[in-house]
């Protein structure tokens, strides 16, 4: 069941990415929804899960972008694993902490990508620093919003379930 849920979430992220790209050229550059998904799974604190999700989602990201195949696969594997490692050692519940995790993950991903491109390509194309900073901030905000909305929705569902059970009793 968790695997099915993961695949549905991945399909939704892919569809959202394409919709975003249709709306504006700058949207995929502004926000990496795939990374939000990687960090979200990483925050569950399972190292293997973080690694596997990072690898798979990264390879899907590579499929929708150009260049060397596996760049995002490599970067997102590290980010997924790193997030899970941090989540095991830190209590991340409050919005500033969540924001920091997502933003740091985005910064780390960008740094790894730049490092890889510089290392592997003779004439690398480097992203604009301003766009990188905007992307880091946007990923942080998107991550916080997603986690908070999800938390609130789960709480409402739980309240509704409890009230329904008590009525049945």
């Amino acid at each position, binding site marked *: 069941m968790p695997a099915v849920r993961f695949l549905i979430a991945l399909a939704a992220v892919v569809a959202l990415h394409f919709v975003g790209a249709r709306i504006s050229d700058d949207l995929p550059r502004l926000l990496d929804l795939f990374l939000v998904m990687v960090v979200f799974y990483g925050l569950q604190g399972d190292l293997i899960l973080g690694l596997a999700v990072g690898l798979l989602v990264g*390879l899907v990201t590579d499929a929708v972008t150009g260049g060397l195949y596996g760049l995002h696969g490599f970067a997102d594997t590290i980010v997924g694993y790193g997030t899970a490692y941090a989540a095991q050692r830190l209590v991340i519940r409050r919005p500033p902490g969540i924001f920091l995790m997502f933003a740091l993950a985005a910064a780390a991903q960008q740094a790894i990508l730049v490092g890889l491109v510089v290392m592997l390509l003779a004439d690398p194309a480097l992203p604009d620093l301003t766009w990188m900073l905007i992307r880091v901030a946007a990923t942080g905000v998107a991550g916080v919003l997603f986690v908070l909305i999800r938390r609130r929705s789960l709480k409402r569902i739980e309240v509704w379930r409890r009230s329904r059970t008590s009525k049945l009793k």
Partner: protein
Amino acid sequence: MPGTVAERRSRWLLVAVLALQLVLLSAQAQTASGSSRLEAFFVRSVAPFSRAVAATTGFVESATDGMRLRSTLEQENAELRTELEQLRRERVEALGIEQELDRLAVALDYTAVPRGHLRVADIVYIDHASWLQTLLLYVGDASVVRNQAVVSADGLVGRVVVAPAPYAKVQLVTDRAASVGGMVERTRRQGVVRGSSPGSLDFRYVPLQADVRVGDLIVTAGIDGIYPRGVPIGKVVEVRPGDELFHEIRLTPAVDFGVLDQVYILDRMPVPDEVKETDPDAGG
């Protein structure tokens, strides 16, 4: 660093996965080939989503178009009729020139490179926002192979880099890793066109003594085994003397990638890599 057995195992797994990916990435970087079975699998998996999004937005756009005012349509119709008339005249002139060329070719016993046919393909996703620029085409059952040229009515778009049926991934000419043999249409001076900063191109290896001016049209030279001769690549917008022996020439692409929704795949087969890489001294 101490840790539980599970943690240590996961660390080794991470190292193994990263090492494997690094090896694959290095291999790709060395061969300059972005295509692999793994990539083909993932492209095939995600492409239906982009096709669905493209179809939905296409439906919305056509519905909006359908609601346009009649006067706008009448005006557009008149403009299109004028354009059609002009194109018909140009076609007749071009046919005359083509026949004359054919007669000359026969007289000189000249074997021309086959021109090939153009096949229309719908774009389902275009990625010109990230640093590395590609687009995804839906090609259906048609057989498409790596290195087939992709053009639009305005000029050169790029080349197919991976073709997991029914999709084909195209590397845009503006991608930093793309290079095309080009020439100045006015003087026939050859050079190499490379992708540059987003939305622009560099025309390299043109000697300082060569005559290149702002406004010159750069077309494909047909010397790279992939692209046919004479397809517009871009216009010169800046010419500066470089540090070494060559000009620094900046081009603006002939194609506006922001408005593309259909392209043409050239059916002419590219020169196989093994033929291009044959050693002339090897004999045989």
